[in-house]
């Protein structure tokens, strides 16, 4: 039956996350952006809420309550707070979800308990490559079978790289098929260079150079069976669609509130149709994008094919967040352009969604 209401349990989770976002995440939003670093306190506190661990398997210390839809709601709320912090907070999913879905028993046993432990441990997924024709399903980074292991060569970028000791999951072409490899951060031949990007300034990301990085045979995710990278890309698209909706909502609310306060020609500018209609369009498109993301997440939970829906939802959300963030800067005018206000940061963040491939997974 068609429905649009979160369950009581989902509503409670959303409310909890929202309170956390208002009290803890938002105050750190601009400071993180300026410092090019995430607040450790916020990451630790968020971890205590179990937002990622709740969805990981019970056998390895997780909550066993996997739901793409619930994760979608969480991602929206967190990104409504701050996109960099949201991706940071959810980063354990970058390792947790692929290992849960495709990892061998040994890989699960070695990697999942850390993500479910008492202290925050980030995840890291290297999928994007620094080229305009980057294709997540046809990486130019290669994994070549060599003796009893693999040798990885290539370059990655936009790799979340939070303080931690865990490995990075590298997507590389293995005999023409994309596969994922568990690579220790200190692996020989692996060089991580911190990045500065248009957006996501608060989130530490790196460019990874892989020059003859040797990993053992059991580093391949899923062992002989391997992993379905296309399915992970779908999950990433839905997650990032939800995050885009969340940030768009934040941007819209700033514009709306500013327009009601700011007076020009003796009246609040929100009473002018030129502004009011722009805000109405924002609200409509955000809701449309959200419903598309929900539908894709719903299908994921149902185990149905979702490639089309995930693609449409992420493309729609990407267009929407850029349009809304740009509109918000416009509504604030000069104030939207200065860093005293958040819309300029939202707009910089919004500009990158085309490249934010699988920066979170659900």
């Amino acid at each position, binding site marked *: 039956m068609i429905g649009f209401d979160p369950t009581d349990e989902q509503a409670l989770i959303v409310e909890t996350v929202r309170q956390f976002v208002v009290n803890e995440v938002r105050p750190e939003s601009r400071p993180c952006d300026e410092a090019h670093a995430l607040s450790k306190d916020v990451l630790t506190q968020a971890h205590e809420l179990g937002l990622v661990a709740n969805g990981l398997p019970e056998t390895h210390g997780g909550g066993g309550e996997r739901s793409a839809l619930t994760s979608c709601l969480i991602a929206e709320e967190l990104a409504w707070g701050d996109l960099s912090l949201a991706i940071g907070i959810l980063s354990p999913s970058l390792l947790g979800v692929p290992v849960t879905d495709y990892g061998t028993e040994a890989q699960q046993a070695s990697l999942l308990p850390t993500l479910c432990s008492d202290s925050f441990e980030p995840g890291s997924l290297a999928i994007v490559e620094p080229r305009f024709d*980057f294709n997540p399903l046809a990486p130019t980074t290669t994994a070549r079978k060599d003796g009893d292991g693999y040798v990885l060569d290539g370059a990655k970028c936009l790799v979340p790289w939070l303080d931690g000791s865990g490995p990075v999951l590298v997507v590389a072409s293995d005999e023409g098929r994309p596969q994922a490899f568990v690579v220790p951060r200190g692996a020989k031949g692996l060089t991580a260079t911190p990045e500065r990007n248009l957006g996501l300034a608060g989130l530490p990301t790196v460019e990874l150079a892989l020059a003859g990085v040797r990993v053992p045979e059991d580093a391949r995710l899923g062992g002989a069976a391997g992993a379905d990278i296309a399915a992970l890309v779908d999950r990433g698209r839905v997650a990032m669609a939800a995050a885009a909706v969340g940030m768009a909502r934040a941007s819209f609310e700033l514009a709306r509130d500013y327009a009601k306060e700011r007076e020009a020609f003796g009246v609040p500018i929100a009473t002018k*149709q030129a502004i009011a209609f722009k805000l109405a369009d924002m609200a*409509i498109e955000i809701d449309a994008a959200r419903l598309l993301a929900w539908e894709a997440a719903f299908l994921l939970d149902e185990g149905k094919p979702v490639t089309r829906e995930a693609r449409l939802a992420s493309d*729609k959300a990407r267009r929407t967040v850029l349009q809304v963030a740009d509109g918000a800067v416009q509504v604030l005018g000069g104030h939207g352009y200065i860093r005293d206000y958040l819309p300029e940061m939202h707009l910089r963040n919004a500009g990158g969604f085309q490249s934010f491939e699988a920066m979170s997974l659900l």
Partner: protein
Amino acid sequence: MPISFELSKNSVLAREHYNKIALEQMRPVSREADTREHDLPQQWVDFWWNEGRKGSPGDPTAEGDGFVTVCIQAEELCFGDAGLYLRMPTAALGGSAVGAAGTPEQREKFMEPFKSSPHPVWGAMAITEPGAGSDSAAIESTADFDDATQEWVLNGTKIFCTAGDGASQVDGGFVVVWATIDKSAGRGGIKSFVVPANTPGMELVGLEKKMGIRASDTATLRFDDCRVPRENLLGSAEVRGKGKKPSGDKGFKGAMATFDASRPIVAAMAVGVGRASLDFLKEELARQGVTIRYDAAPHELTAIERDVMEMEAELQGARLLTWRSAQMMGQGKPNNLEASMAKAKAGLAVTQITQRAVQILGPLGQSQKLLVEKWMRDAKINDIFEGTQQINQLIVARRILDYSSAMLR
């Protein structure tokens, strides 16, 4: 209802049922009905009266999607033909008005012919005037009460009255007419009146020649001392804003509230036309060996693939907004904001989708051998009637800003 995008059994049955009607009963006569603009599409009207109105199969006692199913019916039938949909012998918006603002006695009386008449009958709503469209509070048609005969006397001219030919000319039908009983009271003085077909003083002056939905009769009606009984007023005769606020008044506000129910349906109609166009486009592309690669990297997409994906996302976005507003409506939740969001989104999205399909298909989009050009013409009305794009933006804006109509004009 928890978040779910799986239709109930009844909705699935309804979709299949009305899709079959769309393809078997509507599409074959679609072009002809468009060409013979003011002729009654007899075959279709008879089909609907004899078969179509029986409804779709399914267990009426089973828990279902409620009003969403009504939207699915509208989408499927307009996937068939939007003009013929509007020409169906039903009470249409007239019925919605009687349902929303009428007493049980009024509902019983005026709706009876739609069950028992031996021949097809129509209902209609007459609001727009030559000098008042979106600003429906500015209407100038008048209703004066004649104490001697206990009748309302209507005077004025109504234009753009959908189904106004059938509703005014075929016995058993009726037109719900908006008129003011006190011009000095502004919108508070506006009431709606049920005028049965062929009431003396109601004259069908003409039918519009339109860009699209040509199978639909869009009438101009003139009221010249047209008398209806006292009990044909829907709602209370008391004027709001004068003296004490009457309780239970369903005058202007009641009339406007019918839009909260009709806008999801119009949005669904729009989605149906848009889908007709988009489905055809994808089928034609497939015939030419072009398939849409949803897993391709952005730089690999052709312009056509990019266009089609965007059209699909916008159409589905419009459909989901529509279902949300309908679902809330069915649950008795206020849906004024959501209904206007759906209508604004669907009207514009579908206008753009059908235009884009014509562009992409080039000469095929132009040709009257196909229906793509017709769908572009049919689609545009959805961005105009039942509240233009701009009126719905205005409603959405007021809601999100928490502004009254006085604060945001």
